[in-house]
């Protein structure tokens, strides 16, 4: 079983959901992002999702776009991302990488899988790679024992949902709303329905993401999903802060709030 699977099993035994926290690599700097992700782990985030900054992130809302732009303007490279994965994996928390496809394609799919595995990464979340186009990634992830998290959406047909889930390993990413990343005020009515549709076709754990930003929302999502994925709200802690130390303090507070949320699943 993958290290992500172990984290999900442990949480399930504790009667709670896994908290996945996302941060772009190299935001605000390479060292700053390592400090931020380490702080998140210390404050109760179970799994770290390292997003490779990309120039054209079509699944991301304004917060992650801004953070990615800052990272890219700072000169972060894909190779730095692997170094960050390595450093954060040393905390003991499973580290999954989220990436648009072109950076992997240019690095070389097999070489990327090899280097990600060597850095201690557990696998990839691929927002713009669907299994239909993923032959190279399926082979490389098998070769290096990496997890594959494809996204399912409220708009996925039953046939696509089943096909997509069959290609997943580790966990399935259910997008709670039709839209891009970013915290929302309203809870999604579509998310519980989607999660139960996924459960009907797989035993893999299901993480729900998009629009979750508070402890209360995390608690609600933990009531029906195995994992709660939070990105933009955590990133805002750093974007809105006057300094990195102030940002890290806010980040720890929100991480702890979310960690408490996933431990009180709403029934």
């Amino acid at each position, binding site marked *: 079983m993958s290290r992500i699977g172990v984290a999900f099993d442990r949480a399930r035994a504790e009667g709670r959901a896994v908290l996945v926290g996302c941060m772009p690599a190299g935001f605000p700097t390479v060292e700053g992002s390592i400090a931020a992700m380490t702080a998140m782990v210390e404050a109760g985030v179970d799994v770290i999702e390292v997003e490779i900054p990309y120039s*054209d992130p079509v699944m991301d809302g304004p917060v992650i776009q801004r953070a990615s732009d800052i990272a890219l303007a700072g000169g972060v490279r894909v190779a730095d991302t692997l170094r960050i994965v390595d450093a954060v994996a040393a905390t003991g928390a499973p580290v999954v990488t989220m990436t648009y496809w072109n950076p992997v394609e240019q690095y070389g799919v097999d070489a990327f899988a090899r280097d990600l595995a060597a850095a201690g990464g557990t696998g990839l979340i691929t927002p713009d790679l669907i299994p239909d186009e993923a032959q190279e990634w399926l082979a490389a992830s098998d070769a290096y024992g990496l997890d594959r998290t494809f*996204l399912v959406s409220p*708009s996925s047909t039953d046939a696509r949902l089943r096909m997509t889930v069959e290609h997943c390993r580790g966990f399935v990413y259910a997008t709670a709303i039709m839209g891009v990343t970013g915290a929302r005020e309203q809870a999604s009515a579509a998310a519980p329905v989607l999660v139960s549709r996924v459960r009907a076709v797989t035993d893999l754990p299901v993480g729900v993401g998009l629009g979750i930003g508070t402890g209360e929302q995390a608690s609600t999502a933990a009531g029906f999903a195995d994992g709660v994925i939070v990105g933009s709200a955590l990133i805002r802690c750093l974007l809105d802060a006057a300094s990195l130390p102030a940002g890290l303090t806010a980040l720890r507070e929100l991480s702890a709030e979310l960690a408490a949320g996933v431990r009180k699943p709403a029934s």
Partner: protein
Amino acid sequence: MSVDTPAATGRYPDAAGHFGRFGGRFVPEALVAALDELDGAWRTAMGDESFQTEFGALLRDYAGAPSLLYPARRLSARIGAQVLLKREDLNHTGAHKVRNVLGQALLTKRMGKRRVIAETGAGQHGVATATAAALFDLECVVYMGEVDTQRQALNVARMRMLGATVVPVTTGSRTLKDAMNEAMRDWVANVDNTHYLIGTAAGPHPFPALVRDFVRGIGDEARQQCLDLVGALPDAVTACVGGGSNALGVFHAFVDDPSVRLYGFEAGGDGPATGRHAASITGGSSGVLHGTRTYVLQDADGQTIESHSISAGLDYPGVGPEHAWLHDTGRATYRPVTDADAMAAFELLCRTEGIIPAIESSHALAGTVAIAPELAAELGREPVVVVNLSGRGDKDVHTAGEYFGVLDKE
């Protein structure tokens, strides 16, 4: 409008939208259902005589098709080739793009959607989309890079007069590629009631093939007009290539005519060697951008590099996947044309024929000037060249006026 498909259409793309190693779908799963719905609607429409009749009538009665094929005698004498200009500049809204938007607006109606969104660079596709939206009573939102809204202010006003909402995009390089990102984000959120009326033969399947099918009338008409006019097929067909819809539109009818050379002229900006250009095939490499695999201007990490061109309509760091494939197979030849050469050709057409071309189309003219002597030497006679004059230059008068220094000081 014929519903027959030539052999080339039957072969490419494959059912999943691949042109050889290019094309396909690199999109969020949330969009797949809508792309499948569109794929079904397009395939049905292509085989449906009532759709073709309605589309054909719109092209004829509203857009002004078939556009003329005009023997440009004074230009021909100057460059040593018999130049036949495919006058897409005379279409309603001033460019070939009206064909694509009318086709997609009809499909939108058929799918029961009430809202269209579009990206635009120069503003021509935005104006065309706003026009079709007014005609078909659809809500219309156009995303346009903030930089482009400034250099094409007149087209912003046009879109607003036609009832569209223009959203300036302030992310990234604030040009066409960022407008496409923003349109994709809108579409992911509103896909239930919204059609993304994409403006070129790029993006995820079925867009590249669908857009090609809606603009292929350019080449179908030109092929017959050329046979009527000179009694033979042309020796070459030329077009400018940004995303590449006008070029595919004019190329497609000739792909299975081996004697007809196909030339696509990319925006060479300051020159490909300077790095400041938009020539994705000449100066880029294979990658994934905006939902498709194609030639992309990118760095070693796969980050998109900003493109540069005097022509906003060609200022895009990718190209339609069918062009990437036509390049790889050698069926079409792609060359860069610099800003300076394009502007010289712009002036040449103004002065020899009394036609002010779009700066985009001026790239096709400049490329034609460059290949005329090569073709003449190869053939041992004056070549016959069909040039796709894809748009008119009204929108570019300010840019060209500044370039040539003919504006009075205020």
